[in-house]
């Protein structure tokens, strides 16, 4: 450790390796099986619609201006505007939306080059160098979570951000579940950075995992279940209100 104390590390290496020990401990995945099936649960009661997960995603992955791998939908009309029922009662809630990492991904089926594939941890990945930019996958994805690099990407600041190399122009990109972080044993950045602790990451095949327990206890739902995509992202329903 340097003279600046153990909270500052100064050797060039991966962002995860460079984490101070206490921070790394916070985001540690812990022991995993040899063949995990990574998934995520989003507690919509705890989601406060703050976009911290979306912003850290953008920063971590050097996503150009105008593109989001992860965004927060407000149920109803505009951003942070309530739904008004016929009686005038208002409700407001949020649905964070990124790649659902389907077990039966329609995007993979239509990819003519095999650039989209199911990779480690059963995650849906894109090999950017093999992507020819045909965007069949974008048409096939019922969740609208893939984005396309049309032209010269713009970044703010221009030098870019984060720790993931930028994707080439003319390719399709999307959430990787921060597979580069998983490789080093820490949770995806959106999970780390959710100030409301609304995101639970874990192995859906591990019956003892927190994520499996929460999905069971809270009746976790998948988006567009009728499409037969079998997403690995689950949404936990809001709690019942106890009005006066």
């Amino acid at each position: 450790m340097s003279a600046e104390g153990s909270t500052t590390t100064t050797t060039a290496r991966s962002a995860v390796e460079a984490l101070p020990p206490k921070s790394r401990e916070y985001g540690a995945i812990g022991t995993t099986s040899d063949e995990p099936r990574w998934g995520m649960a989003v507690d919509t009661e705890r989601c406060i619609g703050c976009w911290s997960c979306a912003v850290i995603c953008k920063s971590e992955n050097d996503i150009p201006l105008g593109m989001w791998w992860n965004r927060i939908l407000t149920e109803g009309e505009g951003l942070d505007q309530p739904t008004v029922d016929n009686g005038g009662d208002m409700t407001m809630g949020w649905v964070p939306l990124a790649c659902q990492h389907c077990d039966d991904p329609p995007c993979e089926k239509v990819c003519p080059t095999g650039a989209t594939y199911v990779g480690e941890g059963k995650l849906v990945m894109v090999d950017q160098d093999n992507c020819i930019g045909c965007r069949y996958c974008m048409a096939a994805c019922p969740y609208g979570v893939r984005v396309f690099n049309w032209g010269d990407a713009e970044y703010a600041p221009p030098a870019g951000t984060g720790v993931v190399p930028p994707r080439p122009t003319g390719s399709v990109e999307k959430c990787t579940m921060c597979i580069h972080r998983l490789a080093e044993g820490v949770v995806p950045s959106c999970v780390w950075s959710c100030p409301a602790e609304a995101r639970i990451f874990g192995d859906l095949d591990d019956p003892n995992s927190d994520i499996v327990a929460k999905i069971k206890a809270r009746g976790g739902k998948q988006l567009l279940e009728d499409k037969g995509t079998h997403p690995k992202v689950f949404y936990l329903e809001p709690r019942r209100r106890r009005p006066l």
Partner: protein
Amino acid sequence: MVERRKVLIGAAVVGGAAAVGAGTGAAEADASHDTLPVDKVVRTTCSPNCTGSCGQLAFVRDGRVVKIQQAADYPDKAYNPRGCMKGLSYLQQIHGDDRIMTPLIRTGTRGSGEFREATWDEALDRVAAELKRIGTTYGYDSIHVFGQVPGSGYLHKGANYRAAALLGMTHGTSFDFNGDLPMGMPITFGVQNAEHEAKDWANTRFALVVGANPLETRIPDAKFLLDAADAGAQIVVVDPTFSSTAAKADTWLRIEPGTDAAFALGVVNHVLASGLGDLDFVRTYSDAALLVRTDTGRRLREADLRSGGDPNRYVVWDAAAGAAAVIGTDRLGMPAGVSAALDGTYQIRTADGAVVACEPGWAAVSREVAKWTPEHAAEVCGASAEMIRRVAVAYATAEPAMIMMGGGTNHWFHGDMAGRAFALLATVTGNIGRSGGGFSVYVGQYKVRLDPSQWYNAAGKKAKIVPSVYFAYGPTPTMHPDVPYPKAGYKALFCTFANMFVQSADVNRLMRTVDGLDLVVVLDHQMTDTVKHADVVLPVASWYEKTDLTATPLHPFLQLQQAAIEPVGESRTELDIWRELVRRIAPEQASYMDVSEDDAVRLLLAASNVAGGPTEGITLEQLKEGPVRLRVPDPDIPFGDQIRNLTPFPPKQFPAPIEKLREFVPTGRIEFYKDDARFISAGETVPTYLTPHDDSVSDPARYPLRFLTPHSKWRIHSTYANNPWMREIHGDRAQVFMNPADADARGIRDDHAVEVFNERGSFVAWAVVDEAHKEGSVTVFEGWWPGQFARGRGVNELTSSEVNPIHEVHFVANMWSPSTGWKDCRCEVRRVS
């Protein structure tokens, strides 16, 4: 692609990495793990004016911050991770287009935004020469140093105070100027403010949230309310607006803006009428039993009873003895055997032989509360009488129950009355000083967590503090005589890290003051409209480029800011800048500024590093390792000592001497009856509801709508208004939120350009028609930059700078001083082409 990968790190080379798991795409796996290396990761803190100072990690590559992410290393794990989307995006301002890279000297007319680049030597020589000329001609006190939120950077903001002390400049204020000083607190409890630490919210069984929107404005703390709900607590939100917080509540009550005190009094009325009040608690801890003379409205003192009696000892009616009993101010409770009456009128013979009718102060309080039946409160505030009754019963029977009050309730000319009314509710139910309970006002950054005197003061001198409201708008006829307002008036402004010319109330009035100044110097790192109005601009290092010390009101941790990168461009720290200026202006004082950042931190820690002090045993070296919990109780809740040990109010608060705070509540008790002459003449002796002040200044017929300017989720005041990611999310145009009824009546639809105006000013922005906002009100979230409006300087063209004379009864800067009533404002809206 091969070239690109040269700089990457494949996961395969990382020793000890966890397996990601085998998959079908094994051949491509290496590429999917590619990352770019970082040179270092620095543990530091965020630091805008949000009261958060969240612990962050700065990831640095090639001398630039490439990622900011929560450190999540608080020793109390409940707080992890602290940080919001704004803090995570701050690298866009550090390295953004609006960053000021060099000193600038004005070339056009003031406000034209025309500058030329200058060397530091030229800029410093010029500022020093001007300050010296003004100082020797008019007195250095005619220079106003303005900065924001010292707690978000004790070291460099402290350098402002230290320099002001050395040169004799007057330093301004922010907590009161920002309207965040909840005047109900010093009036009632003798404290500047005093709130429960955020994690204690999770311990409540009932949360009454009034005029506060933590889900949007305290994002890192919001989860503690969710935790409380998860554990079965009921959440009730009282707000004119259907906010994000209201959306998570069990019950949302829509009230008329500015009527929170009426709501509170209706609730108190029903608590007492239902026999749910804890009158023993009231008798023990408050001034309820102290007798008040009905002839003068003053409290009865021992000195009234006999010559030579102590004017600082008070009198109760001992019902057991059927006689008056004198009580001291050294201990709460009642002397043994005294059964103090809370009602009745008693004929007391005074030292001069007269017989005076006296009654316990509680009698006057009760009389006022009795007027506020739920029905009457409902008429004023707009919530139903039935819901007021339900709130009363649920709040009074929950154990414990908390009140969270925010800026929506506080930011009114009579915000002190709302505070006094809710303090009364918390006290009559015995919720003061208990975990999960309390009356907490969460707005603004104020709390000085340690005794900073060794750093703030120098050469045996201390900066004179003048509330910035008097700088901005001139002294009032009722200004307290202790305010050290300069004899020659103000000639110069030295504005540091503040967007004062956009973010101050009644900004057109302020600009008339600014126009009359000889010199305007602005230190900042972003090209704000305040910077554009400077004569000399000095570029200053952001909080990722310097060492500092932070502490926040809601989180009892001391944290070190550590420089992640070198100052961007030619920017320098405040300490560096003042070192250079003092050396030029007063070389004999220069040595006092010749202190390293580390030594300044040591000086800050020193004075409170005493037995029982908040920094006892805390060292710079410990802080370099991460956040350290201050030596305060856990959970950190106010008034525990008063409630458990009957210690008189107020508790010690830095930096004011305790003797000054004792003047606020001379009885040493929670005071619901105020007997200072100005309270008596204003008819404000007891908590009551007063109609919004602007109703008597503006013409409600011409300006029928209330103009509300709450804090935005997407900004910290005006910080982040220019942040590209925030602008992608919520847009780049100021929005005027209107209820459909008000919009229809004016032919206004979504996206129409509308002018919002009153007698003080106007601006043009774009309408959003939204049921979430109450009929009869218009909401524009404050903090947009002028360029984000179609016309005008922004919301503060309309807001009011009126000073409430009650806020001038005493004077301790930021503790009992004028608090701005941002939301006490009327307007009209019309469509423009």
